[in-house]
């Protein structure tokens, strides 16, 4: 490894124990250590450099949050004025009561009665989509759901993939033409659900009933089948460690329809390999 490589800004993969550069010219960051005046990688991942600081971002790790990230999480605990949320990170995230939309409009003040009925909004086990708002001093992230796009998740199922496979996209709400919506949480939790009509009502028409509902809508057979197909596609792609993008889902789905096969063969047979080969070669 030479300085030139670092200068060009190209991604470079390391193995643990690989020498990256000299310790005289660079500072060691996360994922590296210094031995015998050399900076050496301690994890497998990509080398990143900011000025004189060299870090290695691990290929397989828990989710490292950044402000503004879209995450899908699961409530683990209800605490005074806050919820604890499992977001596949090192610590549980926190969702404050003050960072959710409450029934009765955005500008409404939080009352004591809201604190007493927090479980009517979110209870243990509930899935939600939220944005990373800030970090606490101990590194735990604080979430917010102050948008109509965010909130409780319904009408579908969760698929878990390694977080590195979810790239940062323009939009993490993806509507596939097969009547399936995807929410790609950057933490590796992916929600696959029935397509929802875009809510065209503004903040005034905020419908608390619908947002915090615990009831699924009617979902017909073909939609369920499509949801199960898309989930299987995601699982197979994740098994092959393919980074996920919206075009990839579409290609894989169309390929699957062309082949006229059962979804279960994707999981059970060699079909998964064939699908990955077919769709990834197109790219």
């Amino acid at each position, binding site marked *: 490894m030479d300085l030139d490589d670092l200068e060009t800004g190209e991604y470079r993969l390391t193995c643990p124990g690989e020498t990256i550069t000299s310790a005289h010219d660079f500072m060691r960051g996360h994922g590296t250590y210094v031995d015998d005046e050399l900076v050496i990688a301690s994890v497998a991942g990509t080398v990143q450099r900011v000025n004189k600081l060299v870090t290695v971002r691990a290929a397989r790790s828990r989710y490292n949050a950044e402000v503004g990230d879209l995450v899908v999480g699961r409530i683990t605990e209800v605490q005074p004025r806050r919820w604890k949320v499992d977001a596949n990170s090192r610590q549980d995230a926190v969702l404050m009561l003050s960072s959710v939309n409450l029934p009765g409009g955005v500008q409404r003040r939080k009352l004591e009665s809201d604190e007493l009925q927090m479980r009517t909004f979110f209870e243990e086990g509930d899935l939600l989509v939220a944005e990373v708002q800030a970090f606490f001093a101990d590194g735990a992230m604080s979430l917010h759901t102050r948008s109509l796009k965010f909130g409780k998740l319904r009408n579908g*199922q969760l698929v878990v993939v390694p977080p590195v496979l979810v790239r940062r996209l323009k939009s993490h709400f993806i509507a596939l033409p097969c009547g399936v919506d995807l929410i790609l949480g950057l933490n590796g939790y992916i929600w696959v659900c029935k397509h929802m009509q875009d809510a065209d009502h503004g903040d005034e028409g905020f419908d608390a009933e619908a947002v915090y509902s615990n009831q699924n809508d009617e979902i017909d057979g073909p939609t369920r089948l499509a949801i199960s197909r898309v989930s299987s596609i995601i699982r197979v792609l994740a098994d092959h460690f393919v980074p996920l993008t919206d075009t990839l889902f579409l290609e894989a789905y169309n390929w699957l329809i062309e082949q006229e096969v059962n979804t279960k063969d994707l999981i059970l047979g060699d079909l998964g390999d064939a699908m990955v080969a077919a769709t990834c070669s197109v790219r």
Partner: protein
Amino acid sequence: MTGLSKVEISYIRSSLLSDPPLRADGRAPEDFRPIAVETGVAPLANGSARVSIGQPRAGRGHEAEGAGGGTEVVAAVKLEVDGVGDDEEGGKVICSVSCSPAAYPHLSSPALDDLQSDLTSLLGSVLSHPSLCPQNLVIVPGQKAWALRLDTIVFADAGNVVDCLMLACRAALVDTRVPSTRSVEYRAPGRQSGTLNEVPDDLMDVDQSRNGPSSMLETRDPSSAVDFELADYWDEGKVLESRDSWPVCVTLNMLPTIHFLDATSQEETAVPLRLHTMFSFPGGKPTSHGMRMAGAGTSDMTQIGLLLKHAEKYARNMWIGLEAKLAEEEARRSVKAREKFYGGRRR
């Protein structure tokens, strides 16, 4: 996982009840995930097996849970010498299950202990039953016998852990070899030849009756043997008797009007009522070894009868599959042993 939300539970249940029934991964209700069996995984054990359900392919790494994770169990059999008390046949099977905390990251350690003792008692109630105890565990009748310790570890749980455990137990027990022994008897010097002062080269006399003809000693009462020694022999030993009767388990997950097999952990959470049924098919004849209903809920009798018929059918399929795989593993085993033996010689 901290459990599922209400909408997820209702989604899973309504998908299962839709026509045709749909599952999260597209399987039909009676489909199993791929099962992988490997025997002889623990070199120091008398018999061992690793069974995994639902791992996509051997050789592919374990991804984050949900992606490629499956249920994985290792079972190992260790034989220990044990004294035999009065009015005992001798030989016993002791089961234990331990669960790796990594398999249940959300459980506190007391909860993990509860789960372990639950699974241990389930396994023990089936496998430790005297009717299953193999005859050739007895070393010296009335004196010594092998105590068969069957230890299993759950490394990962992605649902259907009981079926996986029972498969691993059966595979490990079939893989088990009981070391061959010869019984040894202490005899007063001179009883045989009359020369009183002849000393004790043959104070200990090896009983050859098990391994060869012994014309001189035909009057010996077998119960006079008090101890044994291990035969120094190339073979690893004999297989356990009654290996045909170690059962396999099929778990039926019951949702009123339908049942399904091999639930994932999400499905187990959504449909808590299940029926574990243990069957063996010695000589093709179905034998039930136990049944346990778990989870909250009730089921009416006529349905149970019907379910048992189905369970027998599923168990038979699983049995046939496992037999074929174990036969294959056994062939591989002798090849492996031979390679090791000759390979070691040449070097």
